């Protein structure tokens, strides 16, 4: 690299990045999410939550569905082994006094935002029985191209027993950052 060219990474301070996470963050990951990452993080979730097996089981279920959504649907792709495209995103597990928070985020194309938001708002408008009914209706539909059951987000809301906290941050004309946070109470 020529000396008059500025390396963009020199503006990146790892310590500032590190302390931007407060002590509530138990785990964070940014990068491609393939089956190996899924496996390692799910085992780690079990380890750090072993004092609370019910919450641990819930966080694990939520993690699998949300992480798989990133892997399949993130607009940011990485090519790993076998030339297979893998979606990239971010995962954060936080712990507060009364509950755990599980947050995932990934890039989405602007044109895909409205259906996601509408789906989340609809899920949040339903009580538990109505949500279960909605899940049963959606599950009867034919599988999607990835073999999914179209009920990942519904299951996440049912498992967490709390609303889906969704946020969209516009990046440019083509992409936005989509984040979804859910709570799991420690005492269930």
């Amino acid at each position: 690299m020529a000396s008059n060219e500025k390396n963009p990474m020199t503006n990146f301070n790892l310590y500032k990045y590190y302390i931007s996470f407060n002590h509530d963050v138990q785990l964070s990951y940014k990068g491609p999410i393939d089956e190996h990452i899924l496996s390692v993080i799910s085992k780690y979730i079990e380890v750090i939550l072993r004092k609370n097996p019910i919450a641990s089981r819930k966080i694990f279920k939520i993690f699998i569905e949300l992480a798989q959504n990133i892997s399949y649907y993130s607009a940011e792709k990485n090519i790993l082994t076998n030339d297979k495209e893998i979606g990239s995103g971010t995962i954060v597990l936080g712990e507060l006094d009364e509950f755990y928070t599980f947050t995932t985020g990934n890039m989405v194309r602007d044109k895909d935002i409205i259906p996601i938001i509408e789906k989340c708002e609809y899920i949040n408008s339903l009580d538990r029985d109505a949500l279960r009914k909605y899940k049963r209706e959606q599950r009867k539909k034919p599988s999607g191209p990835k073999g999914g059951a179209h009920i990942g987000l519904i299951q996440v809301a049912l498992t967490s027993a709390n609303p889906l906290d969704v946020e969209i941050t516009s990046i440019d004309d083509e992409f936005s950052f989509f984040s979804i946070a859910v709570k799991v109470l420690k005492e269930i």
Partner: protein
Amino acid sequence: MKDIIIKGSRDSYIIPSVNFNYRNGICELSGESFLEETAKFYSPLLEWIREYTTKVQKPIVFIFKLTYFNTSTSKCILDFLHILKKYEDNGGDVVVNWHYYEDDVDMQDDIEDYIIDTGIKINLFILD
């Protein structure tokens, strides 16, 4: 017909244990289920149950001991139950038993949803 025996494993994905026995009609699905290609794994199992209920036509006892399954798997479980219900409606002798952890309220909801969806009777047992 041949028995299907698959030993469950947990590597990157989680494969459930399968033991389908055509001589005594006892079919067990246990462990956890999170697979790369869910339909590809379950298609031969569903085909086996279809063949058993249409050709062998002897009593069948289906035992679920799944402690975790993802949403793609939940669809395949529904397919099993539909086949079993159809067999029962046609005069087949069907028993469905489901073993679950007592503290797993979400699993109880899942089982109840399957009963609502298919109309099949599911006997509940607590896992140790």
